[in-house]
Protein backbone atom coordinates (compact mmCIF):
# COMPACT_ATOMS: atom_id res chain seq x y z
CA UNK A 1 0.00 0.00 0.00
CA UNK A 2 1.22 3.41 -0.86
CA UNK A 3 2.45 5.05 2.28
CA UNK A 4 0.33 7.92 3.31
CA UNK A 5 2.46 10.89 4.17
CA UNK A 6 1.11 13.45 6.51
CA UNK A 7 1.45 17.07 5.57
CA UNK A 8 -0.04 19.80 7.64
CA UNK A 9 0.94 22.41 5.15
CA UNK A 10 -0.72 20.95 2.10
CA UNK A 11 0.29 23.45 -0.46
CA UNK A 12 3.94 24.17 -0.81
CA UNK A 13 3.63 27.86 -0.15
CA UNK A 14 0.85 27.74 2.37
CA UNK A 15 3.00 28.13 5.40
CA UNK A 16 5.26 30.63 3.67
CA UNK A 17 2.41 32.87 2.68
CA UNK A 18 0.79 32.62 6.02
CA UNK A 19 4.06 33.26 7.72
CA UNK A 20 4.87 36.21 5.55
CA UNK A 21 1.52 37.77 6.10
CA UNK A 22 2.04 37.27 9.78
CA UNK A 23 5.54 38.56 9.99
CA UNK A 24 4.94 41.41 7.60
CA UNK A 25 2.44 42.93 9.96
CA UNK A 26 4.83 42.70 12.85
CA UNK A 27 7.84 43.64 10.73
CA UNK A 28 5.99 46.60 9.33
CA UNK A 29 5.38 48.03 12.76
CA UNK A 30 9.01 47.69 13.71
CA UNK A 31 10.07 49.30 10.44
CA UNK A 32 7.63 52.15 10.79
CA UNK A 33 8.97 52.81 14.24
CA UNK A 34 12.55 52.88 12.99
CA UNK A 35 11.85 55.01 9.93
CA UNK A 36 9.25 57.45 11.22
CA UNK A 37 9.73 57.77 14.97
CA UNK A 38 13.43 57.28 15.64
CA UNK A 39 14.49 60.06 13.25
CA UNK A 40 12.52 62.62 15.21
CA UNK A 41 13.91 61.83 18.61
CA UNK A 42 16.19 64.87 18.53
CA UNK A 43 13.19 67.03 17.67
CA UNK A 44 11.36 65.48 20.58
CA UNK A 45 14.31 66.17 22.83
CA UNK A 46 14.57 69.82 21.84
CA UNK A 47 10.86 70.23 22.29
CA UNK A 48 10.93 68.61 25.73
CA UNK A 49 13.90 70.81 26.57
CA UNK A 50 11.96 73.91 25.58
CA UNK A 51 9.23 72.90 27.99
CA UNK A 52 11.21 71.45 30.88
CA UNK A 53 14.38 73.50 30.44
CA UNK A 54 16.48 70.75 31.99
CA UNK A 55 18.56 68.54 29.68
CA UNK A 56 18.47 65.56 32.00
CA UNK A 57 14.74 65.65 32.52
CA UNK A 58 14.11 66.22 28.82
CA UNK A 59 16.27 63.22 28.07
CA UNK A 60 14.37 61.01 30.50
CA UNK A 61 10.98 62.12 29.24
CA UNK A 62 11.89 61.41 25.63
CA UNK A 63 13.08 57.93 26.62
CA UNK A 64 9.71 57.32 28.25
CA UNK A 65 7.97 58.57 25.12
CA UNK A 66 9.92 56.22 22.90
CA UNK A 67 9.04 53.29 25.10
CA UNK A 68 5.38 54.31 25.07
CA UNK A 69 5.37 54.65 21.31
CA UNK A 70 7.20 51.37 20.86
CA UNK A 71 4.49 49.61 22.79
CA UNK A 72 1.87 51.12 20.51
CA UNK A 73 3.87 50.68 17.35
CA UNK A 74 1.17 48.61 15.70
CA UNK A 75 -0.90 51.77 15.54
CA UNK A 76 1.63 53.80 13.60
CA UNK A 77 0.37 52.54 10.26
CA UNK A 78 -3.05 53.97 11.03
CA UNK A 79 -1.76 57.47 11.77
CA UNK A 80 -1.46 60.15 9.09
CA UNK A 81 1.41 62.09 10.54
CA UNK A 82 3.46 59.95 12.94
CA UNK A 83 5.98 62.71 13.52
CA UNK A 84 3.36 65.12 14.83
CA UNK A 85 1.89 62.31 16.84
CA UNK A 86 5.26 61.68 18.45
CA UNK A 87 5.64 65.37 19.24
CA UNK A 88 2.20 65.44 20.75
CA UNK A 89 3.04 62.49 22.94
CA UNK A 90 6.22 64.28 23.96
CA UNK A 91 4.27 67.33 24.98
CA UNK A 92 1.75 65.33 26.99
CA UNK A 93 4.48 63.31 28.62
CA UNK A 94 6.28 66.52 29.62
CA UNK A 95 3.24 68.01 31.27
CA UNK A 96 2.34 64.73 32.95
CA UNK A 97 5.86 64.58 34.22
CA UNK A 98 5.55 68.11 35.56
CA UNK A 99 2.40 67.15 37.43
CA UNK A 100 3.80 63.93 38.84
CA UNK A 101 7.05 65.43 39.98
CA UNK A 102 5.46 68.71 41.04
CA UNK A 103 8.10 70.28 38.93
CA UNK A 104 8.13 74.01 39.00
CA UNK A 105 8.88 75.22 35.53
CA UNK A 106 9.87 78.60 36.82
CA UNK A 107 12.13 77.24 39.51
CA UNK A 108 14.92 76.39 37.13
CA UNK A 109 15.36 79.98 36.07
CA UNK A 110 15.42 81.41 39.56
CA UNK A 111 18.26 79.22 40.74
CA UNK A 112 20.16 80.05 37.57
CA UNK A 113 19.99 83.71 38.23
CA UNK A 114 20.95 83.40 41.86
CA UNK A 115 24.19 81.69 40.98
CA UNK A 116 25.42 84.22 38.48
CA UNK A 117 27.37 87.23 39.67
CA UNK A 118 26.56 90.63 38.27
CA UNK A 119 29.64 90.74 36.07
CA UNK A 120 28.59 87.48 34.54
CA UNK A 121 25.11 88.80 34.05
CA UNK A 122 26.38 91.59 31.89
CA UNK A 123 28.33 89.12 29.89
CA UNK A 124 25.15 87.11 29.58
CA UNK A 125 23.32 89.95 27.95
CA UNK A 126 26.13 90.63 25.58
CA UNK A 127 25.96 87.07 24.45
CA UNK A 128 23.25 87.10 21.82
CA UNK A 129 22.55 83.46 22.16
CA UNK A 130 21.99 83.55 25.89
CA UNK A 131 19.92 86.65 25.43
CA UNK A 132 17.61 85.00 22.95
CA UNK A 133 17.28 81.91 25.08
CA UNK A 134 16.37 84.03 28.07
CA UNK A 135 13.67 85.81 26.09
CA UNK A 136 12.26 82.56 24.80
CA UNK A 137 12.22 80.96 28.20
CA UNK A 138 10.33 83.89 29.62
CA UNK A 139 7.56 83.59 27.11
CA UNK A 140 4.28 82.12 28.29
CA UNK A 141 4.23 78.35 27.71
CA UNK A 142 1.92 78.28 24.72
CA UNK A 143 3.68 81.04 22.81
CA UNK A 144 7.02 79.59 23.62
CA UNK A 145 6.04 76.23 22.23
CA UNK A 146 4.61 77.71 19.05
CA UNK A 147 7.75 79.74 18.56
CA UNK A 148 10.01 76.78 19.18
CA UNK A 149 8.12 74.44 16.91
CA UNK A 150 8.10 76.97 14.11
CA UNK A 151 11.53 78.55 14.33
CA UNK A 152 13.62 75.64 15.48
CA UNK A 153 11.74 72.61 14.19
CA UNK A 154 10.28 74.35 11.11
CA UNK A 155 6.89 72.68 11.39
CA UNK A 156 3.92 73.92 9.41
CA UNK A 157 1.11 75.85 11.05
CA UNK A 158 -1.13 72.82 10.66
CA UNK A 159 1.34 70.51 12.34
CA UNK A 160 1.79 72.94 15.21
CA UNK A 161 -1.98 73.29 15.51
CA UNK A 162 -2.32 69.49 15.72
CA UNK A 163 0.36 69.12 18.34
CA UNK A 164 -0.91 71.89 20.58
CA UNK A 165 -4.62 71.45 19.90
CA UNK A 166 -5.01 74.99 18.59
CA UNK A 167 -6.67 76.40 15.53
CA UNK A 168 -4.60 77.58 12.59
CA UNK A 169 -5.60 81.13 13.39
CA UNK A 170 -4.43 80.85 16.97
CA UNK A 171 -1.06 79.54 15.83
CA UNK A 172 -0.57 82.36 13.39
CA UNK A 173 -1.58 85.02 15.88
CA UNK A 174 0.70 83.58 18.55
CA UNK A 175 3.63 83.53 16.18
CA UNK A 176 2.87 87.01 14.96
CA UNK A 177 2.81 88.39 18.48
CA UNK A 178 5.99 86.62 19.50
CA UNK A 179 7.85 87.79 16.43
CA UNK A 180 6.67 91.30 16.95
CA UNK A 181 8.05 91.15 20.44
CA UNK A 182 11.34 89.79 19.13
CA UNK A 183 11.57 92.60 16.63
CA UNK A 184 11.01 95.14 19.39
CA UNK A 185 13.67 93.61 21.56
CA UNK A 186 16.16 93.38 18.75
CA UNK A 187 15.70 97.06 18.00
CA UNK A 188 16.00 97.95 21.66
CA UNK A 189 19.20 96.02 22.12
CA UNK A 190 20.53 97.35 18.86
CA UNK A 191 20.06 100.82 20.19
CA UNK A 192 22.02 99.95 23.26
CA UNK A 193 24.67 98.23 21.21
CA UNK A 194 24.22 95.02 23.07
CA UNK A 195 22.95 92.76 20.31
CA UNK A 196 26.25 92.93 18.49
Amino acid at each position, binding site marked *: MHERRFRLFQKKDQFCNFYHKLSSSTEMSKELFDTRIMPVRDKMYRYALSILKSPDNAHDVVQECLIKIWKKRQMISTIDNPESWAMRITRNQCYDWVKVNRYNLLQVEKTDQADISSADQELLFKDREAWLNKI*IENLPAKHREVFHLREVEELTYQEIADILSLTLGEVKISLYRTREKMKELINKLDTYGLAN
Partner: protein
Amino acid sequence: MDSRTKLLLEKYWRAETSTAEERLLKEQLGTVQEASAEANYFKAIDRRKQQVSEISFQHPGKRIYYWYVTIAASLVIGLLVGTGLWQRQQSSSEYTVHDPEIALELTRNALLMVSSGLNEGKDLSTYQLNQINKPKEIITNKNNSNIY
Protein backbone atom coordinates in the same frame (compact mmCIF):
# COMPACT_ATOMS: atom_id res chain seq x y z
CA MET B 1 21.39 93.21 3.32
CA ASP B 2 19.85 93.25 -0.13
CA SER B 3 16.35 94.43 -0.84
CA ARG B 4 14.97 90.98 -1.49
CA THR B 5 16.08 89.85 1.92
CA LYS B 6 14.64 93.03 3.44
CA LEU B 7 11.27 92.28 1.91
CA LEU B 8 11.37 88.72 3.13
CA LEU B 9 12.27 89.96 6.57
CA GLU B 10 9.26 92.28 6.61
CA LYS B 11 7.06 89.38 5.65
CA TYR B 12 8.64 87.31 8.39
CA TRP B 13 7.84 89.80 11.14
CA ARG B 14 4.25 89.77 9.96
CA ALA B 15 4.25 85.98 10.26
CA GLU B 16 3.35 85.63 6.60
CA THR B 17 6.28 83.61 5.40
CA SER B 18 6.11 79.97 4.47
CA THR B 19 8.52 77.43 5.90
CA ALA B 20 10.44 77.50 2.65
CA GLU B 21 10.79 81.27 2.74
CA GLU B 22 11.85 81.15 6.35
CA ARG B 23 14.48 78.60 5.53
CA LEU B 24 15.76 80.91 2.79
CA LEU B 25 15.87 83.81 5.23
CA LYS B 26 17.79 81.78 7.74
CA GLU B 27 20.24 80.77 5.07
CA GLN B 28 20.82 84.32 3.97
CA LEU B 29 21.09 85.83 7.41
CA GLY B 30 21.89 83.03 9.75
CA THR B 31 25.05 81.67 8.29
CA VAL B 32 26.59 84.48 6.32
CA GLN B 33 28.89 87.00 7.91
CA GLU B 34 26.15 89.55 8.44
CA ALA B 35 26.67 91.89 11.30
CA SER B 36 23.17 93.14 11.78
CA ALA B 37 21.02 92.53 14.81
CA GLU B 38 18.61 90.50 12.73
CA ALA B 39 21.41 88.27 11.54
CA ASN B 40 22.44 87.64 15.11
CA TYR B 41 18.88 86.78 15.93
CA PHE B 42 18.77 84.13 13.25
CA LYS B 43 22.16 82.85 14.22
CA ALA B 44 20.97 82.42 17.76
CA ILE B 45 17.96 80.48 16.57
CA ASP B 46 20.24 78.29 14.54
CA ARG B 47 22.25 77.55 17.65
CA ARG B 48 19.12 76.30 19.33
CA LYS B 49 18.76 73.82 16.53
CA GLN B 50 22.05 72.29 17.43
CA GLN B 51 20.80 70.93 20.71
CA VAL B 52 20.88 67.19 20.57
CA SER B 53 21.07 64.51 23.13
CA GLU B 54 22.40 61.03 22.61
CA ILE B 55 19.13 59.20 22.90
CA SER B 56 19.73 55.56 22.21
CA PHE B 57 16.85 53.16 22.08
CA GLN B 58 17.00 49.40 22.08
CA HIS B 59 13.75 47.68 21.28
CA PRO B 60 12.95 47.08 24.92
CA GLY B 61 11.42 43.61 24.98
CA LYS B 62 11.98 42.17 28.37
CA ARG B 63 13.23 45.10 30.35
CA ILE B 64 9.97 46.47 31.63
CA TYR B 65 8.00 43.46 32.63
CA TYR B 66 10.88 42.09 34.63
CA TRP B 67 10.16 44.77 37.19
CA TYR B 68 6.70 43.37 37.83
CA VAL B 69 8.00 39.83 37.88
CA THR B 70 10.55 40.77 40.53
CA ILE B 71 7.93 42.37 42.74
CA ALA B 72 5.54 39.44 42.40
CA ALA B 73 8.25 36.89 43.00
CA SER B 74 9.64 38.64 46.01
CA LEU B 75 6.24 38.98 47.64
CA VAL B 76 5.35 35.31 47.49
CA ILE B 77 8.05 32.71 47.06
CA GLY B 78 7.52 30.17 44.35
CA LEU B 79 4.18 31.56 43.24
CA LEU B 80 4.53 30.31 39.68
CA VAL B 81 0.99 30.98 38.69
CA GLY B 82 1.26 34.54 39.85
CA THR B 83 4.33 35.33 37.79
CA GLY B 84 2.77 33.39 34.96
CA LEU B 85 -0.18 35.73 35.07
CA TRP B 86 2.09 38.75 35.14
CA GLN B 87 4.06 37.62 32.17
CA ARG B 88 0.85 37.26 30.24
CA GLN B 89 -0.30 40.74 31.20
CA GLN B 90 2.89 42.43 30.20
CA SER B 91 4.36 40.64 27.25
CA SER B 92 1.30 39.86 25.14
CA SER B 93 0.39 43.49 24.71
CA GLU B 94 3.49 44.05 22.63
CA TYR B 95 2.43 41.58 20.03
CA THR B 96 -1.27 42.37 19.83
CA VAL B 97 -2.53 42.93 16.33
CA HIS B 98 -4.47 46.17 15.98
CA ASP B 99 -5.63 45.94 12.42
CA PRO B 100 -8.90 43.97 12.26
CA GLU B 101 -8.29 42.87 8.69
CA ILE B 102 -4.94 41.38 9.50
CA ALA B 103 -6.32 39.83 12.67
CA LEU B 104 -9.09 38.19 10.70
CA GLU B 105 -6.74 36.88 8.08
CA LEU B 106 -4.43 35.48 10.71
CA THR B 107 -7.25 33.85 12.60
CA ARG B 108 -8.65 32.35 9.44
CA ASN B 109 -5.32 30.91 8.51
CA ALA B 110 -4.59 29.71 11.99
CA LEU B 111 -7.92 27.91 12.25
CA LEU B 112 -7.39 26.40 8.84
CA MET B 113 -4.06 25.08 10.01
CA VAL B 114 -5.55 23.66 13.16
CA SER B 115 -8.47 22.25 11.29
CA SER B 116 -6.34 20.59 8.64
CA GLY B 117 -4.20 19.10 11.31
CA LEU B 118 -7.14 17.69 13.19
CA ASN B 119 -8.59 16.19 10.05
CA GLU B 120 -5.30 14.74 8.92
CA GLY B 121 -4.80 13.18 12.27
CA LYS B 122 -8.23 11.59 12.19
CA ASP B 123 -7.79 10.28 8.67
CA LEU B 124 -4.40 8.91 9.44
CA SER B 125 -5.64 7.13 12.49
CA THR B 126 -8.29 5.25 10.58
CA TYR B 127 -5.69 4.43 7.96
CA GLN B 128 -3.01 3.14 10.26
CA LEU B 129 -5.07 1.64 12.96
CA ASN B 130 -2.31 -0.37 14.48
CA GLN B 131 0.34 2.24 14.70
CA ILE B 132 -1.53 4.97 16.42
CA ASN B 133 -3.78 3.57 19.06
CA LYS B 134 -3.99 6.18 21.72
CA PRO B 135 -4.87 9.14 19.51
CA LYS B 136 -7.51 7.13 17.74
CA GLU B 137 -9.07 6.23 21.04
CA ILE B 138 -9.19 9.81 22.12
CA ILE B 139 -10.49 11.01 18.81
CA THR B 140 -13.21 8.43 18.40
CA ASN B 141 -14.21 8.92 22.01
CA LYS B 142 -14.44 12.61 21.62
CA ASN B 143 -16.24 12.30 18.31
CA ASN B 144 -18.87 10.10 19.86
CA SER B 145 -19.52 12.24 22.86
CA ASN B 146 -21.69 15.28 22.52
CA ILE B 147 -19.85 17.37 25.03
CA TYR B 148 -18.07 19.35 22.43
